[in-house]
């Protein structure tokens, strides 16, 4: 078999390299089963707590609040999923694994690509489990099958897009703790100061100003519109523009930083 191994003319296969790295990242779930709890139980807990603790106060009844809050909590949860990209890349740099990958004749993009592909699987999983559980609790899609599918697609696109700024943070930060600090500093206000949990009209003017330009608000409004059957066109357009912008800025930044970091 030795002759078959590594002919110097062997071509680099980007797709295969990326899938191999993605598989490796997903295998980490097997080593750390808590990740499964984090991916599955935590968002459900969040949903139950928000709906039944605040639902009555905010919307008059928890049933009505579930309809309003599910799309928001879904997107809010997806904003946190890419933390695994950030922390994973950071740890790989610190452990010297990136050196190993970089010394191999593989596609340069495969390491970040494999990370994001693995997070894509987590994102799809989160979307399914969250909406599935929501339906069990009594959530009803008002926008029909097309609306539901559109909402899924937008939610997944949002999660994948958020991987890029998180990848940038993960590659740039020297220590894993600072990944957490910076990640939360950015993601927490973006998700809470949005239309996720309450109607922005009830907020003070200065906060409304922020909420209305917050890209997360537009993604949530569009998802909500698709899921419930409300107005969609305007928030969807804004959401798509924002996602393209975020990706357009942070994907090149993350890749440049990946190349630069020693």
């Amino acid at each position, binding site marked *: 078999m030795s002759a078959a191994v590594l002919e110097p003319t062997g071509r680099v296969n980007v797709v295969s390299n990326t899938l191999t790295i993605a598989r490796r990242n997903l295998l980490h779930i097997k*080593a750390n089963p808590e990740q499964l709890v984090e991916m599955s139980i935590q968002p459900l807990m969040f949903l139950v707590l928000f709906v039944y603790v605040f639902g009555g106060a905010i919307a008059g009844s928890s049933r009505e609040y579930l309809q309003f809050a599910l799309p928001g909590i879904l997107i809010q949860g997806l904003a946190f999923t890419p933390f695994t990209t950030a922390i994973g890349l950071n740890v790989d740099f610190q452990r010297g694994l990136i050196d190993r990958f970089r010394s191999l004749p593989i596609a340069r993009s495969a390491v970040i690509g494999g990370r994001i592909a693995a997070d894509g699987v987590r994102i799809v999983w989160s979307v399914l489990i969250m909406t599935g559980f929501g339906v069990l609790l009594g959530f009803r899609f008002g926008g029909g099958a097309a609306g539901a599918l559109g909402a899924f697609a937008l939610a997944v696109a949002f999660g994948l897009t958020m991987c890029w700024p998180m990848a940038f943070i993960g590659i740039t930060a020297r220590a894993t703790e600072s990944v957490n600090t910076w990640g939360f500093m950015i993601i927490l206000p973006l998700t809470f100061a949005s239309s996720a949990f309450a109607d922005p009209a009830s907020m003070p003017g200065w906060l409304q100003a922020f909420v209305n330009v917050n890209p997360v608000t537009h993604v949530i409004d569009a998802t909500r519109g698709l899921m419930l059957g409300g107005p969609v066109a305007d928030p969807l357009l804004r959401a798509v523009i924002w996602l393209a912008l975020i990706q357009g800025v942070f994907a090149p930044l993350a890749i440049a930083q990946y190349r630069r970091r020693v």
Partner: protein
Amino acid sequence: MSSAIEAEGLVKTFGSVRALDGIDMVAREETVFGLLGPNGAGKTTAIRVLSTLLRPDEGRASVGGYDVVRHPERVRRLIGLTGQYAAVDELLSGKENLYMIGRLLGLSSRLARARAVELLEAFDLSDAAAKLVKAYSGGMRRRLDLAASLVGRPRLLYLDEPTTGLDPRSRLELWGMIRALVADGATVLLTTQYLEEADQLADEIVVIDHGKVIAAGTPAQLKTRVGGQVLQAQPADPADLEATQRIMAEFAEGEDGTYTDGQMVMVRIADRSALGQAVRRLDEAGIVVEDLSLRRPSLDEVFLAVTGHLAEERTQTDETERSRS
């Protein structure tokens, strides 16, 4: 024999530090080439340049005939890299680690699995194949790391301080494996702070300090270059160590004077007659010696002669710093 690695005038600076300050070296094929120096001398930077992980600021280097800056992807097909910090995935099993690398190198799923099994066998890791690397001992991890760099059967193997932190038995095992690889036709570039290791394994050595080559040659040449003989004396009573040192200093060649490891006093001498004289002088002073002998200089003495300090002195503090981080 043709050269596997050639470097000319390599310079790499980090801020104001010149990590490499004009390194030249040539490593011949199917030999062990030792890159020797204390921590911070530039060894790891040199390896990183030669493995395409860093671009040199100046100078050029080629590996297997390919320029490291112009054809990095060619170079990467030829080399296997084992870093100072065992770069294996802790959250995968040993087998999954090797399988992953096989797949990344373009092996089919079946071949990658077979190669993983074969290497686990060769490195005595079959029993731990399915265990997470997190649970491996230091020696097992190092063996897996070496196995990982061999998946693609590289013609050139870079070993960056492969035995740092290993117990003596694991170190000997690793030495055996390195010798076997060279016998199989590989070329090994080895960095180490252990002079004994370079002496044992390397066909040729380059000693670097502060990013500059300060000596080069075969271990024998380096020892001859320092020249002369080493006279060593061990007083029976450790209290006589200082008195012994004073007497031995009379025979010192050059400016190094005597040095001691706490038990034994050593001095480089030019003239064999010093042995007889030393016997008389020590006897007159009433010092009983446990051991008094003449030998060829070790690489330690070479290092002392060319750098003005012993290799391990500076290493001690660096090692503590590393274990802390």
